[in-house]
């Protein structure tokens, strides 16, 4: 059984702080996506990473795919209250299906 773990589960920080959240598994993935979900809404795709070691930046968000394609991280610089939400990683194994992690719930206080 594939294990997919996101950490931390909860994170509460002050505006302006930096943070990193992690997505780890024992399985190798062909690609991985990160989504953000705001309260009362569905998840929204942030980024897709495909190549081992790949780094992608989206404004203050930096996404990295591990060299072995078993893990990923999301780093937010100078967090803002608008970054508050549930961050979900979604690796793709073989085929076309995604598996969603339990998420990291981030709260950024002004």
């Amino acid at each position, binding site marked *: 059984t594939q294990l997919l773990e996101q950490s931390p589960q909860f994170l509460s920080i002050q505006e302006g702080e930096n943070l990193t959240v992690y997505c780890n598994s024992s399985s190798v993935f062909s690609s991985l996506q990160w989504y953000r979900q705001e309260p009362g809404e569905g998840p929204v795709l942030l980024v897709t990473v495909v190549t081992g070691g790949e780094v992608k930046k989206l404004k203050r968000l930096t996404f990295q795919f591990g060299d072995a394609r078993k893990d990923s991280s999301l780093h937010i610089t100078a967090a803002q209250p608008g970054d508050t939400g549930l961050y*979900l990683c*979604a690796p793709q194994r073989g085929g*076309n299906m995604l598996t969603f992690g339990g998420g990291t719930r981030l709260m950024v206080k002004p």
Partner: protein
Amino acid sequence: NAGVTQTPKFRILKIGQSMTLQCTQDMNHNYMYWYRQDPGMGLKLIYYSVGAGITDKGEVPNGYNVSRSTTEDFPLRLELAAPSQTSVYFCASSQLGGPMGYTFGSGTRLTVV
């Protein structure tokens, strides 16, 4: 484009009642999915479809049924509702499956009492 539209947004059911959650997408996506999200948790796949006329079970299909008669619509049927089905239900679609990213609806919050 409206994207993925789910109705209703909220519903309260009594134990044993049945209902259909509606989902429609206007992006001509082949793949469609139903997920449930319990409080503080991630998403669990209930059913999915890779095209009209084709459906398959996901991780937690018991107590649910689906149909896919058209590319646009993918309704989820709950028969004999149980308190364990209290959850938020999300429908999603994608063009070619995972690599292209999923587009989600805004969800249906269901309470079974």
